[in-house]
């Protein structure tokens, strides 16, 4: 009796996952979505534990315990700025799980045909995503150099490795008794994962993280085919679709194709171009900048990865508060690829208590720049570079940008005049209406707030 009910728990679990994604459509229902997803997961796990073919509980329970002991502190203590790294690690963990399950299935009873093809796909995606996500973690955490590392013939080596891994995979499908091939297959997949990420620069990480999300999902879906489990197929397909859509959004936001992100090694062109002669620019102190902000009626703040590094989001919220109190309209313009993962800026600013209706997407805010008094750029560079629209030879030509240059005045908080992540010089810095504000983002915004509140008191006195 019980055994007959269990498959329906899987059905309910699948419904839970679908509702989870549906309710993510709005911040109002999103937490309900998490609950639906968690309930679905619980039903699936319980439904599996009660199955007649699960007889040994000891190791499972120990593993649950260890997994929770790692997972809970990771989730509760992780600072929001480290969310991209955590996401990379979780892709790696998820992929490791599917890869190892596939491996175990293979050694348990090697079978040919469709099941083996699914198993090969599962383990290929699993192993390569595991190492690729680890590499992405290394780059995001800056243990590894974030600049793309390239060498001659790189793409040929990479594609050759992948082709070899696939060839061995096909061989295994044809003759699954050749168990000695499997470790070679797994090793090739893992090496390919490493090589895939080496030439990708930090600025491309949003796309890569989303793509790895997709791979991990597809790997889980392939596992569903191996285990004849439709719920796994559905859950994996949902995740695969999610990652794919996010990476397409990221690619569009950079006006680049998948192949270009994965094999294009962004930023290499610039090594020579950046040597251009020094051009004149205007800079200002915090005091002057505060006066400009005080006189403004509408300010649009453009945060970028530099804001995340400097952890300036709380100071920005103070700036937002003090300006709003003085009747200045303050909004935040969020470029889709600002930061190191999709939606990175939104989470940081939400953490700092910025109301989320002040976080405006690119398409909506771009029409507002011509009527804005000040565009304040903090730690963003390429996403406000007008060269994307004006210079067809620029490496970022055609990339949709936030049109900060259309604001009446532009202020840019920056450490120095060095070019940004992609190594591309920015004409925005040299406009007549641009003021460069040199300093650490956090300290500078802090002094802006201080100047403004001092001003306010003087005015009231």
């Amino acid at each position, binding site marked *: 009796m019980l055994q007959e009910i269990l498959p329906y728990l899987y059905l309910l679990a699948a419904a839970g996952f679908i509702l989870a994604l549906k309710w993510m459509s709005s*911040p109002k229902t999103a937490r309900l979505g998490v609950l639906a997803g968690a309930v679905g*997961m619980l039903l699936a796990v319980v439904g599996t534990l009660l199955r007649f073919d699960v007889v040994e509980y000891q190791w*499972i329970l120990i593993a649950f315990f260890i*997994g929770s002991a790692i997972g809970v502190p990771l989730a509760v203590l992780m600072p929001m700025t480290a969310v991209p790294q955590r996401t990379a690690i*979780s892709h790696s963990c998820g992929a490791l799980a599917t890869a190892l399950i596939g491996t175990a299935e293979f050694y348990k009873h090697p079978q040919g045909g469709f099941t083996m093809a699914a198993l090969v796909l599962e383990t290929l995606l699993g192993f390569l995503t595991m190492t690729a996500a680890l590499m992405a973690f290394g780059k995001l955490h800056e243990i590894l150099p974030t600049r793309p590392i390239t060498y001659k013939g790189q793409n040929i080596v990479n594609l050759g490795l992948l082709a070899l891994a696939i060839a061995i995979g096909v061989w295994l499908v044809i003759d699954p008794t050749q168990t000695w091939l499997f470790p070679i297959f797994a090793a090739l997949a893992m090496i390919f994962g490493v090589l895939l990420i080496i030439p990708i620069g930090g600025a491309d990480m949003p796309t890569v993280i989303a793509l790895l999300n997709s791979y991990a999902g597809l790997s889980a879906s392939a596992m569903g085919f191996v285990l004849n489990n439709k719920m796994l197929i559905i859950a994996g397909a949902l995740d695969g679709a999610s990652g*794919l859509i996010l990476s397409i959004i990221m690619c569009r936001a950079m006006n680049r194709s998948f192949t270009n992100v994965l094999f294009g090694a962004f930023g290499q062109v610039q090594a020579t171009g950046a040597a251009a002669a020094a051009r004149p620019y205007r800079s200002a102190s915090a005091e002057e900048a505060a006066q400009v902000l005080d006189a403004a009626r509408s300010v649009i703040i453009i945060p970028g990865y530099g804001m995340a590094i400097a952890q300036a989001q709380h100071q920005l919220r103070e700036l937002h508060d003090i300006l709003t109190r003085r009747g200045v309209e303050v909004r935040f313009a969020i470029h889709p690829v600002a930061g190191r*993962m999709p939606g990175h800026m939104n989470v940081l600013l939400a953490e700092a208590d910025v109301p989320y209706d002040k976080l405006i997407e690119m398409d909506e805010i771009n029409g507002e720049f011509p009527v804005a008094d000040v565009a304040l750029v903090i730690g963003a560079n390429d996403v406000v570079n007008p060269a994307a629209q004006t210079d067809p030879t620029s490496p970022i030509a055609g990339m949709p940008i936030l049109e900060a240059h259309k604001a009446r005045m532009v202020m840019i908080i920056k450490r120095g005049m060095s070019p940004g992540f992609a190594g591309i010089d920015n004409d925005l810095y040299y406009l007549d209406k641009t003021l460069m504000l040199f300093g650490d983002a956090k300290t500078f915004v802090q002094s802006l707030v201080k100047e403004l509140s001092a001003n306010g008191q003087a005015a009231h006195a």
Partner: protein
Amino acid sequence: MRNYEFELYVFMLAAFLGFQLIRGVSVLLHTPLMSLTSAISAISVVGAILITGAADASPLTRTLGFIAVVAATTNVVGGYLITDRMLRMFKKREGAKR
């Protein structure tokens, strides 16, 4: 053979459903979306349990399964918790400001 055909249909429909659902997700929430989907894809814990708990598990498959359960559980627990933590930040604003 018919079983695979059926499963491929399930996959196709789920993938299309996924595309439709994700397109409706607010841009604001793309980061929590990623941590949520990575928690959901840890559904592979189901496969890991089946391997680890099987009566005929060899030391090799049980070890692999054990590591897989640990890795997947980390994602399940951590993924849902951090997604909720992020979403709470979005929610709080609403109450405070309106």
